[in-house]
Structure formats: structure tokens, C-alpha cells
């Protein structure tokens, strides 16, 4: 099987994601209270934490679906969504922000496939419309991607006709079609029936083995232990604890981590 990623583990040493003191307020609600986090190229970082801890919001800040209200967030050395002049941040024109997002794939809890398009149309839409890829090339690449996530025979099927697990795999193929250098997963298996979780995790595992840089917000502690290079525990809008998954899971240092893990393990 060919790999998802062209050149795994680029040796630049540049962190893929570099968050420094990231804050996010929604009006009076202070959701992120200074997040510091580094994700190296080729690394798989899993983020766990109770609901309302800001995990999803942080993930959405990485590709600037949400605007940060303090701190700095760099992806591959580029400040996301803002231009820095002096020590002031100016928001980028939406077109430039859209350009930055092209290299970052995102997979959502509720799949968010385009229901009026077939599986293949979902996958090729952005390559054709955004990257201006030739239609034939995009279709060929899209078929290959669907085959890789095990859905080669479903290209003409509409999302409503697919199971949740199949929909999520199409969604992963759709994100990969843009040849991203970073993949963000927002609780990709939380909306799935238990027996369908495995097929999605298998695809993600393969992606990780191919060297894709991934940030995964998840409740799948097993996946984090097996595949993750780093585990981050978030609570109350801050990173409470992070480290090697095995260490954090078996020897948590913080009380809050212990309390959370005792509930989910």
C-alpha cells in the first residue's frame, strides 16, 4: 500500500504547530487561558480533557476557524490569521486566511460531508475549485484516496447512504485530497456507534504511520496510548499536563489529571 504522505518527517526541525500563550474569549467567556503547545513535524499529539475544557476551540484556532484573542499561533513558521506589525496583530484578509488553511486538513466530529454531493464529488471539490487542479487528475487522485480509506466502491454514493464510519472515512479522504502538511481531528469517533470506531481509527493509525503530523482531540485513550507521540491533558482552558502518553496515563502528576483519568479509564 502506498503511503498517504509524500515526504514524512521533514528534517527541518521547525515545529509544525507552535502555540504561545494563546487566549480565546467569546465575549465575556474566557475559553482559552494561555495555551502553550508545540507539535513537531511528523508527530501525533492527542488532546484529552473534559467537555468544555477548550480542546475543540483550541483545535479550531489552529486553522483560524476561530480567531485567537491573545498570544501567537504559528503553523509551519507562519503566523495564522494575522499579520504582525510592531507588537500589534492585524487580521488577514479572508482570502489570505483561506490560503493559509489549504495546507491544513480538518476532520469534524459530525463529519460535515456535503450531502448534495457523492463521496467522490466531496473529495474532489476543493482540489478542483480551490487548487484549480485539472478535473481528470483530481478525479483520479480522489478515486485513489477513496480506495485507500477502503471505500473504492462507494464513489457514487451520497453521504446519507453511508454509515457513520464510512462517512468519516470519506471526510478523511476529503481532507487528504488537499495534500495537507497537518491534519486536525476534532473528536472524529465521538459520533460513531462503538462497532464503527475501529475502522476510522485504523485509517488514522495508518496515516500516522505514514508520517503525517496530526493533532487529535479524542476520548479514545487506547488510540492515544498506541499511536500518540505526546498526550496533552487540558482543563479549564489551560494545558494541565503533557508528556509521553504512557507516562501521563499511568503516572499522572496533577490531581486534575488523576481525577479525569479515573473517570475515563
Amino acid at each position, binding site marked *: 500500500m502506498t503511503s498517504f504522505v509524500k515526504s514524512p518527517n521533514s528534517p527541518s526541525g521547525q515545529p509544525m504547530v507552535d502555540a504561545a500563550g494563546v487566549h480565546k474569549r467569546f465575549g465575556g467567556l474566557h475559553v482559552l487561558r494561555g495555551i502553550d503547545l508545540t507539535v513537531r513535524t511528523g508527530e501525533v499529539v492527542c488532546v484529552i480533557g473534559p467537555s468544555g475544557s477548550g480542546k475543540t476551540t483550541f483545535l479550531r484556532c489552529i486553522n483560524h476557524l476561530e480567531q485567537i484573542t491573545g498570544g501567537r499561533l504559528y503553523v509551519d513558521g507562519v503566523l495564522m490569521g494575522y499579520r504582525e506589525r510592531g507588537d500589534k496583530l492585524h487580521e488577514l484578509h479572508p*482570502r489570505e486566511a483561506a490560503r493559509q*488553511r489549504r495546507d*491544513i486538513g480538518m476532520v469534524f466530529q459530525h463529519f460535515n460531508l456535503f450531502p448534495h454531493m457523492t463521496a467522490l464529488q466531496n473529495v474532489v471539490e476543493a482540489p478542483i475549485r480551490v487548487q484549480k487542479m485539472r478535473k481528470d487528475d483530481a478525479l483520479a487522485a480522489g478515486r485513489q484516496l477513496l480506495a485507500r480509506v477502503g471505500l473504492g466502491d462507494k464513489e457514487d454514493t451520497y453521504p446519507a447512504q453511508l454509515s457513520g464510519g464510512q462517512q468519516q472515512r470519506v471526510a478523511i479522504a476529503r481532507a487528504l485530497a488537499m495534500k495537507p502538511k497537518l491534519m486536525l481531528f476534532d473528536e472524529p469517533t465521538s459520533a460513531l456507534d462503538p462497532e464503527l470506531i475501529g475502522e476510522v481509527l485504523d485509517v488514522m493509525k495508518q496515516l500516522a504511520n505514514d508520517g503525517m503530523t496530526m493533532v487529535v482531540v479524542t476520548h479514545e485513550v487506547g488510540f492515544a496510548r498506541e499511536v500518540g507521540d505526546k498526550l496533552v491533558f487540558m482543563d479549564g482552558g489551560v494545558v494541565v499536563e503533557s508528556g509521553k502518553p504512557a507516562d501521563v496515563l499511568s503516572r499522572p502528576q496533577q490531581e486534575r489529571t488523576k481525577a479525569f483519568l479515573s473517570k475515563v479509564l
Partner: protein
Amino acid sequence: MVGLLGLFVYGATTNERYHWDTYRKYLFDVRISQGAWVTIQLTFWAMVLGIGLGTALAVMRLSGNPVLSGVAWIYLWIFRGTPVYLQLVFWGLFTSLYPHMRFGIPWGPAFVHFDVQYVDAAFFFACLGLGLNEAGYMAEIVRAGILSVGEGQSDAATALGMSWGLTMRRIVLPQAMRVIIPPTGNEVISMLKTTSLVVAVPLGSDLYNQQHQIAGVIFQPIPLLLVAGTWYLAITSVLMVGQHFFEKRFARGASRKMTPRQLRALAEELGKQGGGGP
């Protein structure tokens, strides 16, 4: 109920005050069919303007830009808040407000210059008046359609690097169509009949006013009303068939049921696999 209806039909066909001979004589009268054609044209152009401008207004209201949404709100306030009859009279008087129109650079050279009063502008102003009024209603229908598409859809499109315009055009509006089409069908059918108000402009060549003029000459209003009613019903029937096909077109992916094309492909596949099939 059926019996009562039968009695009514029997009564109507035998009551000579309906003047069915006159009805038959004028049903395919060339003035009537020309009037019907004018009515169809008015409906078409008014709806083209109404849907186009209405969509723009809906997008403006949802844009988050306070100037754009403010302008759209004021437009809706004025055009939904005054009777369409009043608006049509106003557009009819527009030529007396601005008798000379020139299109060009302000205070510079004019490209086109004409006296509006010498142009046969009644048809143009009738379309304009009906269309601008319609845009106010279409804006709300389109806005409801856009709001019916979940936020996750634009999230997904945005995350793929699609611009706001591309997201609207390719992702949101096609899905909104499912919600937009049924009330728009209503609006088209309603517009077909609202065109009878163009006499306010004044334009007298549409279906209703044609039959009205004929009826005025021969002093038999009832058979001519029935003639016009028959034509309106016939056109509405055609429009309803059209709406049905539009709805099918935009229902793609809405159902778990397989489309005929998918069923054919599946049948072929099974046929190939094992001689016989199910």
C-alpha cells in the same frame, strides 16, 4: 360533496347567463392569447429580478457587514411595507419625476441620452415595479434557506480553504435550494396573478386587462372572466409541473433511497457477477 359539485356543474352548464357561447368564442381570441403572453413575460422578468435581487439582499443581510445588512433591512422595510399597487403607480409616475435620463459619467460625456416619455416604458416599469417588490419577499425566503444549512457545512468548506463566495455558491446555496424552491413556486404562481395590477403603471396589454377591455365592449363580464381564469389555471398547471422537476433536481442526496441511476448501476453489477441476479 361530489353530488353537490355535480349539481353545481350541471347548473352552470345549463344556466345561459354564463354565456358559454361567448366563452367559446373568446377562449382562443388572439387578444386573449397575446395578453397571456404578456402576462407570462411580466411574470418571468419580475421573478428574474426578484430572485436575483432577493438573493443579493439575503446574502447582504447575513454578511455580518453592518452597512450591507442595514441597506438590505431598509430595502425590505420599504418594499414590504407599502402596497405593490402603490409602488406600481409610483413607477408609472417615475417618468414625470425624471423625464430625461442620461447614462454616462456624471458631469462628463453621456453615452446614452433619451427622453423617457417618448420611450414605451410601461412594460419596463411594470417589470421593474413587480420585481423590486418581489425581491423583498424573495430575500426572506432565500435567507430562511441559507439559515437552514448547518454551520458545519461552511466550517468544512472554510477548513478546505474555500472562500466565502465559493462556499456560498457551491456548498450553502445548493443545499438551501431544497428549502427555497417550494415557497418560490408559491411566489411565481402568486406573481402570475399579481401581474393583473400592472394597469396601475398603466399597462393594459396583459391577460386580465385584455379580457377586461373586451368585456367592457361587449357588456359580458362573466364569460370573459372565465376565459381569463381558464388561461391562468392552464399556466399555473404548467408551472406546478416545472416546480416538481426543480424539486427533484435539488433533492439529490437528501434521501437514503438509491437514485434510479444508482439502482441501474447496481443491477448491472449484479448481472455481471453471477448470471441471473436477484
